[in-house]
């Protein structure tokens, strides 16, 4: 008897507490910046695609929902020919972002991805690629890597000496 009254009292008291329920969707949900939601592909500060098609995100993905194919432009810059994420399988674990050596793939605080048709949850590169760098705004992988690409020859990356003169021993 006493415990029932006590319970009633507690419930009654809650009627005067501050509301924690959000009236979603009328009222937007405030999301913490590190929320792991929809996945995007970003661009480096020069506007080039950041993803170098290394397949590390794909292999890290526990549900294997990333598939891509590498290709190269005429100067040897590697990028994905296609890049597909099947969001109907994704568990938003963030392993792909963690594996990515170029900060290309990032999870953003957006979860509003509901679809009536499951097929629409398959995102291709055109749905994933944004026009900015997202997090780590300054990072540009190809500025650090040793491979040459259009506009960056051997020895022109960050902290690189000019190419060795192989014929230095010849007179």
């Amino acid at each position, binding site marked *: 008897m006493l415990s029932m009254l006590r319970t009633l009292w507690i419930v009654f008291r809650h009627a005067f507490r501050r509301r924690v329920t959000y009236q979603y969707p009328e009222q937007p949900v405030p999301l913490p910046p590190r929320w792991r939601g929809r996945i995007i592909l970003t661009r480096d500060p020069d506007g080039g695609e950041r993803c170098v098609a290394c397949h590390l995100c794909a292999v890290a993905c526990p549900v294997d929902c990333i598939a891509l194919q590498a290709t190269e432009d005429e100067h040897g810059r590697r990028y994905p020919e296609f890049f597909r994420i099947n969001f109907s399988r994704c568990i938003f674990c963030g392993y792909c972002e963690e594996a990515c050596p170029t900060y290309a793939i990032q999870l953003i605080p957006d979860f509003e991805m509901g679809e009536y048709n499951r097929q629409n949850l398959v995102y291709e590169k055109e749905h994933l690629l944004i026009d900015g760098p997202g997090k780590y705004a300054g990072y540009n992988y190809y500025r650090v890597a040793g491979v040459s690409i259009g506009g960056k020859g051997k020895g022109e990356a960050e902290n690189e*000496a000019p190419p060795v003169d192989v014929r230095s021993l010849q007179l």
Partner: protein
Amino acid sequence: MATIYVDNKPYVVNEGRNLLQVCLSLGFNLPYFCWHPALGSVGACRQCAVKQFKDEKDKRGKIVMACMTPAAEGVRIAVDDEEARQFRETVIEWLMANHPHDCPVCDEGGECHLQDMTVMTGHNYRKYRFPKRTYQNQYLGPFINHEMNRCIQCYRCVRFYQDYAGGQDLGVFAAHDRVYFGRHKDGVLENEFSGNLVELCPTGVFTDKTLKGHYTRAWDLQTAPSVCVHCGVGCNTTPGERYGLLRRIHNRFNHDVNGYFLCDRGRYGYEFVNGERRVRTPLLKRDGALGPVTRAEALTEIGKVLSGPAVLLGIGSPRASIESNFALRELVGPDRFYDGVSARERQLLSAMLSTLRAPGVHSPSLREVGEADAVFVLGENLAEVAPMIALQVRQAVYRSTVPMGERLGIPAWHDSAIREAIQGRHGPLYLATVTGDKLADVATRSWCAAPDDLARLGFAVAHCIDPTAPSVSDLSEELPGLAKEIAGALRSAQRPLIVSGPSCGSLAVVQAAANVAISLSAAGAQHAALCYDAPECNSFGPALLDGHGLDEALQAAKSGSVYAAIVLENDLYRRADRAAVDAFLEGAEQVVVIDHTVHDTTKRADVVLPAATFAEGDGTLVNNEGRAQRFVQVFKAQGDVQESWRWLGELSRTAPSNGAWQNLDHICTRIAETAPALGEIARVAPAATARFLAQRIPRQAHRYSGRTAIGAHVNVHEPALPEDPDSPMAFSMEGFPSTCSSALTSAYWAPGWNSVQALNKFQAEVGGPLRVGNAGVRLWEVAEGHDHKYFEVIPPAFQSREKEHLAVPLHHIFGSEELSVLSPSVAERAPASYVAVNFRDAEALQITDGENVQLVLDGIPYRLPVRILPDLPSGVVGLPSGLPEMSWVKLPGWGKIVKEVPA
């Protein structure tokens, strides 16, 4: 055997090895770079450091390189020693100081020995903050990509290229921290084994350029054990597929066959599988044009003729599997099954086959070729027709000098010291070929002559070895001495080897080689061997099924009978005279061609059925040694593509016949029952019902990615996995990755070992055979007794003719083989057609290099540019064999060179 102590535990090991090999064989994870089981030690990388102690009481010890220290009795070392461990970590740190930040875009990544070793030593963070050294890359041709920044100066590449494979155009340049591995200038790497650099280089300096064109990480490839289809040696391969495209070929270790290596034709010929000339659907001729139809329509159309009055002729193929040839034989009946090779080749093959199966003659495995201590090559330009045999002959002449070094107290594994000690000397190698050979740099003597003269030399050698062998009368001046010298070298060797084959189209050459082998066995040589190379991947297969000659089939056109023909994976225009084939195909009621690639014969067919290539089907091939080897389907092809034997099985179900097989095992059982020579075929690989811990063996690595996204753009619901009724493997990453049958293992992996060197963990001794035995079954072993029946017909000496020249075939590793040349990279290396003439003949004819002439052969004129070939004997001209533009020329044959008169 010796007892050594590692980390204070005693181990019994093979004496005469180095500590690195021993430690790896015992299962220790000791990092290394420069050592390779096939190349021996040089001690260049300083990575394999261990601590050696004088005795039990020695607590200080000293750091030594394991690969440079003999595993002698009582040696005490510590692998797990703090100082040694730190040393190894520091060495990696130095190697990494200049290493670029490339892994994400490096094709080696994921199967990189440097990545593995870096992780193994525990070097995690770079401390080096100064500018990194950089290099310019070189263009190295269509096979190899060069990214020199990634080099760690282990010297493996040049040691393989120069010392092992005999290449000249890859070297080391500059000095100290600027050494450079490349060519003297940009250009195509000439050596026919350059592709092995991809697997040998422990980093991403040399990578597969064709793979780069459709790059896929190693863990994403679906693979299955396979066999190379581009010559008769039958090297074991691992093809890798992704998204329905064949991506690359890697070596698959088979200690008895190809060991660690492949030739460039085998590695880069694969792209015909993805080619535009593939047949992907059944085709039916309507109103004179072939067009796609459904499989039911095609089968009905064929069924009409099968149940009709026409006699059904089946033409087999040396490039189709045993199973497919057999299925054809079952459908048409043994009397109407033809082997599908030219009359001359048939004659040569049957002479070779009967010699190899005769008692007293040993047909060596490729490994045994490399262990011979005196070699006599008769008629074959090995580097062009069977490159891997050439590679092993090169090892044989090197290895037979190793005892010289050993007498000086240098162990056999101490590669650089041995080479220093022997100063370029090599074991006895005699080359008798039509034109100069790539092995000439290590030959004791080489001699170029017309095929008949080569044969005469062979017969003379046999007579010198065994006087009861037929003798050769009136040998020209230099020959008796040469024959005696060769006979002497073969007689005094422990393991003499004769290498010959059909490539110069001369029966006499094949028989002369047989006589030499028989004479050695008659003279009591215990370990003499005779190695014939075979032109195609299954040349001996149709012959073992007792096929009739193709020419007999072609006669049908003249006989006036009503006939229909089923042509199995064969372009008849490469086998016989164009007019005869035309008449045969036109005279037939119906021509059915089952093949994977469009060629002249498919164009004239009434029905074409799409066949599976080696990558899309299962089957068995018999190599030049008589070894039956299974290739397992790598991936399911789209649409109606299936193995030829499956098509033929379906056809026989529409006709009254008994070929009611449903899968590979059924047909193998049936072969074993009907063809006694192939009784072992079912033993070649485990049956499809075999299970390993109640599971199938996965074709995909456990890290295979994208399973739920690959087909999601078509349908978000994942389809069921394809069934495999023919092998115990699954088209999946699930299953039990058993390595207990080498015939079913395509990729080796062990924790911490992601590169090809994971293989170490699966060999009883690193570098030796696989723990579970090597794949393949030899169909015959050397029978007891001696068959002293010599071939008696000795051709007269070659006489050059006044107005005519003897045209002989010249083979090209890139270009002469039908399928590999459909690969763009191989096609880029193929020569344009030409006629080769020697200096004197050119002078007499007043023609110069590059000039166009007419060569009239059998009444057919060929307009060809002249190529001056100094080694060619007088009176002989050479024509490239098998090039797409002149695929059939009856060679050897007499032809006339007519100088073109400028218009």
